[in-house]
């Protein structure tokens, strides 16, 4: 059967043209991986990232798992599906991460808490309403053939590259205290940290903030085991349960009790209701659980790889393989070791801009730590490609792949929204994955500040979006005003 024949779900044959294409894509990936590893076994470092990406992509598409929906659909159509899925994923990732940390394999570091997290997240949250997906969501939807989503990825890439390197008139917006503090950090002259808005933001403001897990903020709680327990329970599990309870009480309970015809529910019936809410969208719940476990396994895999190759950063392996060109001045590259999205996209943007003749290394972001490696050697970048590929495989197998070209409005929203996402993500030091999902699951409370900001931004975004749609409908004189 072709992929385009429309049938009722469950009646399509188990094997169809899309299955063949999915398998072909998978097989091509396997062959390519074997060839790469045969070229140099140290390139397996990239392959691990890429195949975790494929795993994420498969699960994301399967579960329609996009964290933008977690806040956007909650406000726009009162659907808690993804908010619930996100909490399931956080819970599972936190548990696996606790085990990985106790085993000594974790390389996750906390992020500084400050107003920048809230503000950056709000800008990001506003943007995601217009682009139709968060940073990860845009990647997996690109894998479904959504060309608008691909535009979002392009916009995020270039906007970030510009944000972290731009100066000129932007410098006039920098508070004097930031400039002074940046200058006092005694950074290498070629990074010119007193020029460029983002350099002064980082060196003169962010670096003065405290980055610590909750256990560390509490002044250390004795053994490493106690610290992990405190971090996991207080920063992840308890907030997850509270949020699930709130989601149930506000969004799910009224409809559930009405359908069950229960007038005065007992605690047991409420608990059954919470379970019903968690399992209402089976695919989303399963994907959330799977993603949480996979993300935790990724942290372990990175730790194990670094131990095996005896490196702390992939830049050391690149240098050993004579790939010096893209490294930072410390011979490092961006190598988080877990699911992260935005920085590698900034590197893609910077790589293209460098090829156009504009220097991009005279700043902290690329020059000091992250480098601008070739996209073919950018390990987390190939994880993002893996996400697209995994989502494409799943979409093809489910007969859901379709090339979709955006109309002018969707294209503009993708570019403007993507630009806002890039700006917001860099100010907040990450997106919902890097600044929320990876943080709260590893004892870093700054992630909840990000989620709050993202929710506030999305709330405003939904209001503006609805107003826009109403205005368009009024202009057209049709019946579709929201």
């Amino acid at each position: 059967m072709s992929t385009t024949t429309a049938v009722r779900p469950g009646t399509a044959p188990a094997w169809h043209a899309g299955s063949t294409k999915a398998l072909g894509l998978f097989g091509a990936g396997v062959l390519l991986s074997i060839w790469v590893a045969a070229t140099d076994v140290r390139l397996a470092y990239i392959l691990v990232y890429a195949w975790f990406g494929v795993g994420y992509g498969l699960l994301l598409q399967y579960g329609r798992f996009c964290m933008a929906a977690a806040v956007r659909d909650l406000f726009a159509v009162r659907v808690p599906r993804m908010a619930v899925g996100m909490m399931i994923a956080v819970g599972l990732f936190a548990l696996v991460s606790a085990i990985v940390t106790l085993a000594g394999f974790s390389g996750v570091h906390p992020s500084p808490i400050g107003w920048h997290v809230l503000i950056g997240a709000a800008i990001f949250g506003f943007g995601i309403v217009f682009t139709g997906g968060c940073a990860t969501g845009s990647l997996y939807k690109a894998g479904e053939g959504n060309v608008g989503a691909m535009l979002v990825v392009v916009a995020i890439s270039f906007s970030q590259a510009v944000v972290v390197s731009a100066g000129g008139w932007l410098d006039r917006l920098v508070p004097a205290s930031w400039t002074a503090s940046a200058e006092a950090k005694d950074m290498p002259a070629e990074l010119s940290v007193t020029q460029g808005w983002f350099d002064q933001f980082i060196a003169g403001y962010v670096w003065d903030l405290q980055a610590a897990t909750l256990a560390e903020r509490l002044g250390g709680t004795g053994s490493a085991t106690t610290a992990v327990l405190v971090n996991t329970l207080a920063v992840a599990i308890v907030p997850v349960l509270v949020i699930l309870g709130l989601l149930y009480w506000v969004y799910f309970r009224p409809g559930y009790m009405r359908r069950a015809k229960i007038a005065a529910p007992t605690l047991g019936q409420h608990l059954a209701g919470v379970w019903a809410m968690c399992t209402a969208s089976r695919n989303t719940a399963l994907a959330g659980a799977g993603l949480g476990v996979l993300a935790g396994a990724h942290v372990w895999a990175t730790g194990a790889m670094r131990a095996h190759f005896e490196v702390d950063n992939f830049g050391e392996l690149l240098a050993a393989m004579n790939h010096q060109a893209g490294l930072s001045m410390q011979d490092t590259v961006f190598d988080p070791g877990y699911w992260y999205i935005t920085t590698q996209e900034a590197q893609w943007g910077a790589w293209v801009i460098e090829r156009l003749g504009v220097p991009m290394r005279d700043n902290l972001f690329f020059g000091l730590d992250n480098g601008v490696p070739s996209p073919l050697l950018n390990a987390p970048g190939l994880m993002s490609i893996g996400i697209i590929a995994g989502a494409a495989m799943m979409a093809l197998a489910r007969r859901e792949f379709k090339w979709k070209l955006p109309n002018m409005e969707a294209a503009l929203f993708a570019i403007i929204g993507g630009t806002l996402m890039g700006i917001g993500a860099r100010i907040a030091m990450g997106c919902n994955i890097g600044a929320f999902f990876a943080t709260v699951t590893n004892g870093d409370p700054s992630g909840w500040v990000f989620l709050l900001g993202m929710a506030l931004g999305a709330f405003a975004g939904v209001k503006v979006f609805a107003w826009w749609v109403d205005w368009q409908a009024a202009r057209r004189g049709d019946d579709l005003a929201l």
Partner: protein
Amino acid sequence: MAVTFNQTGDGKWTLDVCGYACPHPQMYTKKALEKMAGGDQLTLVFDNPSSGESIMAMCDADGHEIVDRIEGGGSFTWTIRKA
């Protein structure tokens, strides 16, 4: 392409949101259902898979029944009976 919402018969409506990504399909479906009378039937056509999950949740919460689903080639044609 444009979003189209038309009455096609007595108590029968069609909403076509093909080409639109989140949150258009779910927001338009919500509004279309609000404009319909109880018992009316909506034929919804969309091609953004993730919107389907939200629309299913909406229907579940508000008691609307998805009476038929035809899917393939990335397109989804659902028939929803309003509660």
